[in-house]
């Protein structure tokens, strides 16, 4: 077996050195009745060529965003990934290295994370960022817990227009603590209802969590929400699921957010059916000790040379155990590497231009689709690269008919919030051609005819 290097001769020699008759004898410490008496029931092993053929074949059973015209967003976005991203993330020195607990021989990972932290802090307008969390949804939940620790209050307000999966994860994380979650209502234009928010802001509210662009692609009045939160002594937690919007929109940090979290997949990470992605997590320096997750800092070595180390480990589980800020152990190392490489390539101009292209494509597609009789735009407030269409008929059936025509037409959001029974969330990115968008409109016309 190519991954098991010992030859029969060597095994004999090693057994002799250890003083056992066979490797199996080493398992005599396991009581006999607990040992497997036969081999596991698994398929027969495959050599590399048939293994690749099998997996290629099974993968081909799936349609993918290259084989169909895809207009899907809703928390995961189809963007172009420059070749160089894979070139670098495939390097064994990154791919197969351990967590950088030994800084002298992990400077590559550490410096890359330091650069990542710098870029994310700058993009979000915050003082600092951590080395990443699991994904946007769990990052939001961790941000809420952090706000509860800082304020010592009991309640989290979260906008109804937050991605429902994020809200669900928030509930999972908070449910066994003595904390409450309340949802803030939406106004008809697709943004948070400020008067509803105001009425819920009481002395027990630790934080207001606002996603923008929100689950429906709509850009929120972040400044006004932050103001209301702060007037109540609550923290403002900003959130996003389409990181590309950071190229165009005012960073949450500039409107005073205390914690900013979001999904970083758009920055150079494959869609991967939903993971692995990476949670971006940024905050103000004064709250750094309450932040979960790994953090890198700059320092000097014994010769006075610049170097990087993991810092504030005393917040983390391996030292603080049950008093840690979180049980999180890992970061999304390779995804963060993909992100820092991607952002280095894009630079400030590339990111801005790409965001503008997405913004413009979404408008082109929106205009094409809403020109179809019976199809209207559900929310009128400005959106980024996705928007909700109100369609005549049941979204699920409609999307199935579009899929039959080779078009992944959007996400069925009928269950995402009240009043969306006929809602489809449609997304356009730079990966959609003008032809595709026109074909989509044509197909929708036919389906509705």
């Amino acid at each position, binding site marked *: 077996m190519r991954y098991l290097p010992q030859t029969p001769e060597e095994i004999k020699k090693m057994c002799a050195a250890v003083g056992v008759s066979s490797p199996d004898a080493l398992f005599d410490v396991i009581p006999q009745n607990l040992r497997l008496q036969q081999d596991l029931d698994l398929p027969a092993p495959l050599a590399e060529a048939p293994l690749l053929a099998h997996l290629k074949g099974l993968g081909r059973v799936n349609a993918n965003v290259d084989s169909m015209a895809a207009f899907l967003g809703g928390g995961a976005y189809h963007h172009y990934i420059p070749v160089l991203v894979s070139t670098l993330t495939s390097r064994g020195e990154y791919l197969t290295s351990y967590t950088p607990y030994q800084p002298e021989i992990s400077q590559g990972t550490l410096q890359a994370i330091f650069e990542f932290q710098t870029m994310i802090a700058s993009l979000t307008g915050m003082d600092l960022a951590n080395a990443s969390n699991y994904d946007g949804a769990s990052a939001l939940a961790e941000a809420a817990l952090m706000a509860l620790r800082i304020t010592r209050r009991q309640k989290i307000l979260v906008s109804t227009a937050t991605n429902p999966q994020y809200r669900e994860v928030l509930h999972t994380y908070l449910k066994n603590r003595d904390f409450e979650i309340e949802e803030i209502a939406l106004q008809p234009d697709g943004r948070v209802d400020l008067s509803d928010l105001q009425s819920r802001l009481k002395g027990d509210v630790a934080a207001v969590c606002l996603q923008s662009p929100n689950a429906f692609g709509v850009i929120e009045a972040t400044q006004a929400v932050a103001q209301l939160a702060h007037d109540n002594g609550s923290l403002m937690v900003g959130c996003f699921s389409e990181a590309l919007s950071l190229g165009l929109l005012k960073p949450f940090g500039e409107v005073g957010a205390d914690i900013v979290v979001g999904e970083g997949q758009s920055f150079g990470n494959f869609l991967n059916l939903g993971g692995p992605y990476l949670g971006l997590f940024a905050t103000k320096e004064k709250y750094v*000790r309450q932040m979960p997750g790994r953090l890198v800092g700059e320092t000097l070595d014994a010769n006075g040379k610049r170097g990087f180390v993991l810092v504030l480990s*005393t917040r983390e589980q391996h030292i603080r155990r049950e008093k840690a800020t979180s049980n999180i152990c890992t970061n999304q190392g390779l995804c963060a590497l993909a992100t820092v490489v991607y952002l280095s390539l894009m630079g400030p101009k590339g990111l801005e231009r790409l965001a503008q292209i997405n913004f413009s494509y979404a408008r082109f597609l929106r205009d094409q689709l809403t020109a179809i009789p019976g199809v209207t735009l559900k929310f009128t407030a400005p959106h980024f690269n996705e928007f909700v269409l109100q369609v005549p008929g049941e979204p699920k059936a409609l999307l199935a008919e579009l899929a039959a025509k080779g078009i992944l037409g959007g996400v069925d959001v009928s269950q995402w919030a009240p009043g969306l029974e006929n809602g489809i969330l449609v997304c356009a990115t730079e990966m959609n051609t003008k032809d595709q968008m026109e074909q989509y409109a044509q197909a929708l016309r036919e389906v509705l005819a």
Partner: protein
Amino acid sequence: MNCPKDLKYTSEHEWVSLDGNTALVGITDYAQDQLGDIVFVELPEEEETIDQGDTFGVVESTKSVSDLYVPLSGKILETNDPLLDNPGILNEDPYGDGWMIKVELSNPDEIKELLEAEAYEQLIKEEGA
């Protein structure tokens, strides 16, 4: 390890210096030595009322963290704020400039529970063994 005779001690490695109805509290020379370079200190709010056995703060080195336990109940009159910006003082002068809180005692009977220097020296000898 230096354990001044005029101070009283706890098994959690805090020292107490009594002056009438008030007490200064800090961490011992042994404690700072065990922690190594201290990089962070958290102190309570002044005026706060604290009970014996509660935690009143935290000291951290880069690799470990210790909660600080209240040796004597009372009200916090003063905290040694320079430590917040310069936690290294705790390593340099644990019994002097490294004092942490000044407490007005609410239950002086608790003083009886503290250790004398000899008993504390014995304790750290056993811990080190």
